[in-house]
């Protein structure tokens, strides 16, 4: 079982990122989140979601998912957009919010069901 992303449902609202950041920091912040909305190509309206899973980096682009094995690749281009933030590959991987009985916070926070467990 793991987090799945439907990038075409995503509206780039960042709720997943903030919820994940809370799971990591017990406060509201986004720098530790292992899921993030990439939103830097604003003029082209090109956006999606990047997830650091246990072994893979999942890049949910609108045209489809790309899964890269961590260690086999450099930082994914989509995850580099946020130049001043902590690089995605240096963050803790997703643990499915193991301490949350109701399930992963990103799934619960997503207002459009773009993120789900499967």
């Amino acid at each position, binding site marked *: 079982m793991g987090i799945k992303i439907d990038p075409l449902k995503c*509206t780039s609202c960042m709720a997943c990122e903030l919820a994940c950041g809370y799971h990591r920091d017990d406060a509201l912040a986004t720098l530790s989140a292992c899921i993030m909305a990439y939103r830097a190509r604003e003029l082209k309206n090109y956006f999606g979601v990047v997830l650091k899973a246990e072994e893979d980096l999942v890049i949910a682009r609108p045209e489809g998912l790309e899964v890269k094995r961590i260690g086999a690749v450099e930082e994914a281009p989509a995850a580099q957009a946020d130049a001043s933030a902590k690089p995605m590959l240096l963050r803790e991987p997703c643990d499915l919010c193991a301490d949350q009985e109701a399930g992963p916070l990103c799934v619960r926070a997503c207002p459009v069901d773009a993120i789900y467990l499967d």
Partner: protein
Amino acid sequence: MPYLASDKIAVIDLASGAIAEESLTDELLAAHVGGAGINRVLYERHADGDPLVFGCGLFTGTLVPGAACATVTGKSPLTGGLVHVPLALYAGMELKYSGFDYLVLKNKAAAPVYLWLHDGIADLNEAANIWQADVWSATRQVRAAMGDELIQTLVAGPAAVGGSALGQLMINFWASGDRFGLGRALAIKNVKLLAIRGMGLLEINDPEGFVNACLELTAQVKAGPWGGKKGLGELGAGLGQPGLADWIAPIAHRHRAGFNTPMAYNTFAMLEGDPKALKESAEETPGVLLSDPLAAVDLMKLGLGAVDACGLIRDCARLGLDVAGLIAASGAKDLAGLKAAMATASGPVPGLSGPFGAYAPAQSLGADLGQGGWGRRMALASVFGLDPIFALMTPDLSLEKLIELADLGAGLSLEAAELEALLDRLAS
């Protein structure tokens, strides 16, 4: 230190360049909560410097659904009155995490400057090289100079710099909820833009209780009438403009939400290239984000086709010109007339009044707001940092629920009667 806040107010004297910092006191929060409530106190405190005050709502940048907005408060060049303008998309969130909850810009800089806010630091920088730049160019230049594409900008465009009172305060590349010419008010102070980046952290009074209450509210909103609805077309159907969906459909690309806003009413109009294409466009500037729904409605009502209307909206976005204001002030009835008016239109805007402008629809679809209810709902959205369109359409965001969240999140014990009185004062 207060919860859900950075605890800093920056007071920037543009004339001297001095930047002072004040604390966000518990007394200020308890009496005025946030957004327009505290903005107005700061405005009055610094009134001799004709200030523009930028402030976050209590919940801006949090997991409360719709908590996207900051508010800018100042004297409108169009009405001369004190006004409150919502700043949606990501600007409010970025300000909240920048290390400042409130900014007071007072007096006037001797030469063009821009303000750079990040990591609890406020810097004034020279802006001579971007002073005449259009909104898009100015944003791109500042982002390139800082090496960060996620910097959010609040910009005075060429319309504002050139003297038009219709100069809107723009967010990055797109229209904001400014109907009052606060872009012009910023330009009068010789400030081209605010560049904001937020990577801070907000403590919560009762973390588990607050987050669970927020997520329960999100689930409630999802199950409500707006659950799963996206885009200008869906919003139009709710606004009694069912033709809007068919009008925009041929050029509608993907729909974007503001920060943590369940209703993604911002549709991107693809003007060059296939709107159904999912891959990144090869064009640098293929379209425009329709972040001001009522402006699009106004143009549709004039009989303009969607391509012409969105092309005009894009042109106005580069100039930083309020489209709805252009239509109302010019009286033009067709595309040629509107284009001709763009260079010179400067107001006045007939019927424009009150502290809150017509960015959100005039009526809620979720509940009967009663006499004066629209203004109180706008005040409530500002005080708590909620997207005003979402707040208007979502009765689940009740006063009682927001009071409960204020306690859980910020440890604020708000009384309903006092809060109602505050909203009445702000709306009048």
